[in-house]
């Protein structure tokens, strides 16, 4: 190929790349949805294979371990049933008191069940794709959770799928409160974390916070994206920096093994 033809090819290529780079966010989002749906045939099996590989690396359990785990789970189930009965009583009492005070009953949001179809193949962002999109009522910024706790928020919606930005991503910011204290802070992820045990940062706490290991961290409801009271994780450690305090938080949900999630529709009550 002559140098002139090579130059023409390069110039044409650069012009096409430049055109693509100048596309509006709306066009980019549409293109992204299109690409995600094009790889959807792999996605369903892909996430299953990934989960199995993760589970395999977690280690196989022998019969004795399984028996012990089963006994523990039974005990926990009994405990939770007892707790649930107790809480039911509190709930009824709370409702009566609220009625007496003419409080509006706390709304319960509609949950849309979804399945994780694909994990992001890159290295610096923590996102997953779910098998629900516009057609199922999913919109941008809807919170996503599992029965264990908060997972993330919807960042981009396609017709039949959506992308979820996980709480372990560096750009995820959630206003949070800590159980049993008046402390408020912002929970965010990190760009480079141990993928096996991702840790979240809880920043902008007071220096006197003195948080203890195991304290629960919930969403504060400030910011309008995440409703109040969603469990984010548990405090792992607390350190004092120059101007504020900072805690490391272990996410409540296992972000490596999430399979079934719920998307919270804040505008529609159950």
């Amino acid at each position: 190929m002559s140098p002139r033809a090579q130059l023409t090819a390069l110039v044409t290529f650069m012009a096409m790349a430049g055109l693509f780079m100048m596309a509006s966010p709306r066009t980019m989002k549409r293109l992204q949805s299109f690409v995600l749906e094009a790889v959807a045939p792999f996605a369903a099996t892909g996430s299953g294979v990934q989960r199995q590989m993760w589970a395999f690396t977690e280690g196989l359990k022998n019969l004795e371990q399984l028996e012990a785990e089963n006994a523990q789970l039974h005990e926990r189930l009994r405990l939770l049933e007892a707790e649930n009965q107790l809480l039911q009583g509190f709930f009824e009492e709370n409702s009566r008191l609220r009625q007496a005070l003419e409080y509006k009953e706390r709304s319960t949001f509609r949950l849309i069940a979804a399945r994780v179809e694909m994990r992001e193949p890159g290295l610096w962002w923590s996102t997953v794709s779910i098998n629900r999109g516009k057609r199922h009522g999913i919109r941008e910024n809807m919170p996503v959770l599992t029965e264990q706790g908060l997972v993330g928020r919807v960042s981009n919606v396609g017709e039949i799928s959506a992308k979820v930005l996980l709480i372990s991503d560096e750009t995820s910011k959630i206003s949070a409160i800590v159980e049993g204290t008046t402390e408020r802070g912002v929970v965010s992820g990190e760009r480079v974390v141990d993928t096996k045990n991702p840790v979240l940062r809880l920043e902008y706490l007071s220096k006197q916070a003195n948080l203890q290991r195991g304290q629960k961290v919930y969403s504060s409801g400030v910011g309008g994206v995440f409703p109040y009271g969603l469990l984010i994780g548990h405090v792992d450690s607390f350190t004092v920096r120059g101007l504020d305090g900072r805690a490391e938080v272990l996410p409540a949900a296992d972000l490596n093994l999430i399979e079934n999630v719920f998307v919270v529709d804040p505008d529609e009550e159950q």
Partner: protein
Amino acid sequence: MIRLFFVLLIVLYLAVGIGTMIPPAAWFGGARVLPLHSVFVFAAAALPLYPSLMLAFLVGLVWDLMTIPIDSTGSAIFLGWSVIYFGIVAFLLQGFGSSIAQGRWEAHAMVAGIVASLHVLLEFLQITLVRSVEAPPEFTPLLYLRIFGTGSLTLLVSPLVYYFLMLAEHFCGRPVRSQLDPYTRPLL
């Protein structure tokens, strides 16, 4: 050559899908295998400039759209930069086809590893540039392990990719090998 182009296009699509199935290696700093990069290096070396650039455009576009988060304000980093990256790789690998045809699988593996590591390193530097004020970069051993581990893992799977692509090349009538002169052409 046209048949090889379309076969490579299909293989690239499969590589995208397989890439999503392989989880990050937690024992290796969260490094990943990037089969797409390995296949692309083969394609860029085996094909002439025009089809290589076409593949570079598609691969860069798909990679960016699959990995970079986009919200209503725009993308996290320059969407489309990978198109230029793969374009430059395609341009630089022109003329590398003869070594592929001669069976130099180790050369393909080395280049694939370098291309994968360099891509994730440039991606990291771009994020650092965009977010340097709010999130200053922390250059930890884990970071280096992730960047160079990705190249190493890609290098390790590349001989397998090379083997399958040489089979595909054989199926397409050996267009890459036919470019060699008869005295340097491998026997198999």
